[in-house]
């Protein structure tokens, strides 16, 4: 598969032309633990994704990217709770529902059907004792009510669509007979089997080597063009952002600190944290170069504050070269900047 050194943000319906977003998250707050000892992992998360568009969630480890995406599909760990917020999903039928309000059976009807999810670890996210075909056919039977035969037929079509040669044959094999990249194609086939309106992808390429990464990104892009689903793509790699996303939300310590289109955020970042991240990716064109050499993309001195003692005011202040006393007084609000980005920094126009 040809590797494009730098992919322009692909042609997709512009954000404002889209009638209504597929996903709209408002003021999401997620905590872990009992009400006495609860630690807040993410707070004040608002985002929206329109059909055919990809929003990337970027940030260092522990910034709350996975928590956010797992909250959307309501699969947080047992100790995790959505404290407040709305997760409005416009399903296949066009009905908008708040996933936070749904009970378990209703959620089961949404998962795998309107919502698909792929995870980071292709080696462990497939069931070792079931054939690959069965694992793809299962949601088809559950949600589309197809017979065993018809579901298997569709599973084979899905395998074919995600670029696995000899699909009919491969459907009868078990996960251990597939390589990492091929397994990730299988998980994509599972997630897309029922033609979901939204695909959640939590670092789906991080565990793969570079050429396979590119193949998977290209596959996801072309599947999105065919099926038109919205995509929430979690990554900590700006090179990947440039390849796949239309919009970016940058997360830091459980909050979104900057948001905009890929072009805006990468070319004219306004939050000091985004600037710091991008300073390590000298030029957009060399992003894939960077990935090849596996150089760390983050080299901002200092550490992410722990959930246990989150500082007052701007959470980035301890690492910010522009920090002043007033930065530490109150949490900065998200403001629209000169370039159209939204940034959570009170000094964005001074620096």
């Amino acid at each position: 598969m040809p590797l494009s050194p730098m992919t322009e943000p692909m042609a997709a319906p512009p954000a404002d032309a889209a009638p209504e977003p597929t996903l709209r998250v408002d003021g999401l707050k997620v905590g872990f633990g009992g009400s006495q000892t609860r630690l807040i992992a993410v707070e004040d998360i608002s985002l929206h994704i329109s059909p055919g568009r990809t929003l990337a969630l970027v940030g260092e480890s522990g910034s709350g990217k996975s928590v956010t995406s797992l909250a959307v599909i309501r699969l947080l760990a047992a100790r995790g709770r959505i404290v407040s917020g709305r997760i409005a999903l416009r399903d296949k039928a066009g009905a908008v529902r708040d996933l936070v309000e749904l009970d378990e059976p209703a959620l089961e009807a949404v998962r795998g059907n309107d919502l698909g999810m792929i995870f980071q670890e292709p080696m462990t996210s497939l069931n070792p004792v079931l054939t690959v075909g069965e694992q793809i056919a299962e949601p088809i039977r559950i949600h589309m009510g197809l017979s065993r035969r018809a579901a298997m037929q569709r599973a084979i079509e899905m395998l074919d669509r995600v670029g696995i040669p000899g699909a009919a044959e491969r459907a009868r094999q078990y996960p251990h007979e597939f390589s990492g990249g091929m397994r990730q194609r299988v998980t994509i086939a599972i997630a897309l089997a029922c033609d979901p309106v939204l695909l959640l992808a939590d670092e789906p390429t991080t565990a793969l080597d570079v050429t396979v990464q590119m193949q998977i990104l290209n596959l996801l892009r072309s599947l999105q063009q065919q099926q038109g689903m919205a995509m929430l793509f979690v990554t900590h790699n700006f090179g990947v952002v440039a390849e796949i996303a239309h919009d970016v939300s940058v997360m830091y310590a459980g909050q979104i600190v900057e948001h905009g289109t890929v072009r805006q955020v990468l070319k004219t970042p306004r939050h000091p944290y985004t600037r710091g991240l991008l300073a390590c990716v000298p030029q957009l064109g060399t992003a894939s170069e960077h990935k090849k050499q596996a150089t760390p993309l983050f080299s901002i001195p200092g550490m992410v504050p722990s959930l246990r003692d989150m500082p007052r005011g701007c959470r980035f202040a301890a690492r910010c070269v522009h920090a002043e006393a007033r930065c530490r007084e109150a949490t900065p609000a998200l403001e629209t900047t000169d370039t159209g980005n939204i940034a959570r920094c009170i000094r964005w126009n001074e620096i």
Partner: protein
Amino acid sequence: MTLYVVRRIGAGILLLLALSMLVFFLLRLAPGDPLSSYIDPMVSMTEQDMERLRQSLGLDQPLPFQYIYWLGETITGDLGRSLQRNGQPVSELLMASIGPSMLLMLSGSLLAILFGIVIGIVGAVRRDGPADVILAALSSVGVSSPAFLTALVGLYVFSGVLHWAPAGGMQEPGMPFTLSGLLSHLALPALILAFGQTALIARYMRSSLLEVLHQDFIRTARAKGVPRRKVILKHAVRNALLPVVTLIGSTLGLAVGGAIFIESVFNWPGMGLMMVTAVEARDYPLIMGGTLAVGAWVILANILTDVAYAFIDPRIKVG
């Protein structure tokens, strides 16, 4: 697969050979003379009579010769005659007692596998709930109490005090055979035999399932919209069973030990009971024959386990 099984059977035969050798020599090294139980104490015998008898039984030969002689006979299918029991052929005695033993052991193991797996699943799914706590307590008792103790306590409580079950034997003496009669005699010893095994299997199943439930593919299954119940029964249990199958294999072997006690306590006419009396009487040919039969059963159980394992885990390619 076939090749693999053939290889395993070959190895099993070698193992049996080694076992027979070990038991043969250990028996002869133990103090005591088989003749003392062979002869009738009421009939006085001279030294010469004794010597003649010894010769006729081949007991005067050097040990290695005795063994080779025994082995030769065994290979041709002749396990010799019992020194007791009116000199009945060992093979006949074994045949008569294998059936009852198998019946007891297999029904005990089947109960244990069924109960163990179900209890393990309930314990893992309702983790730390009341059922889990009760089961945990019961299984500690089950794992830590030796078979003879549970057998005696069980006999006392259910037969002696509650009169729920007959005290022993395989059916009412002097009555014609009936299935219900057999089952009512079988129930208590089989349950008691199952007790310890159930506890072991349940514990193992519980922890294995808890581990599996944390694995990534469970999250994948839930992300597909598979209902929780089905996630557990279809995706988790099959994976959790893999290590449990190995354990079941070894409990099938262990059941032999428990069965010997239980047969003695319940007067169950199986190999265990026969072996206990054979050992008391130093009935060498019968002990050897019984050892071979038990050894073969343990080895067979292990082979069956491995085959079952390969059957449920597609990653195992044998052959």
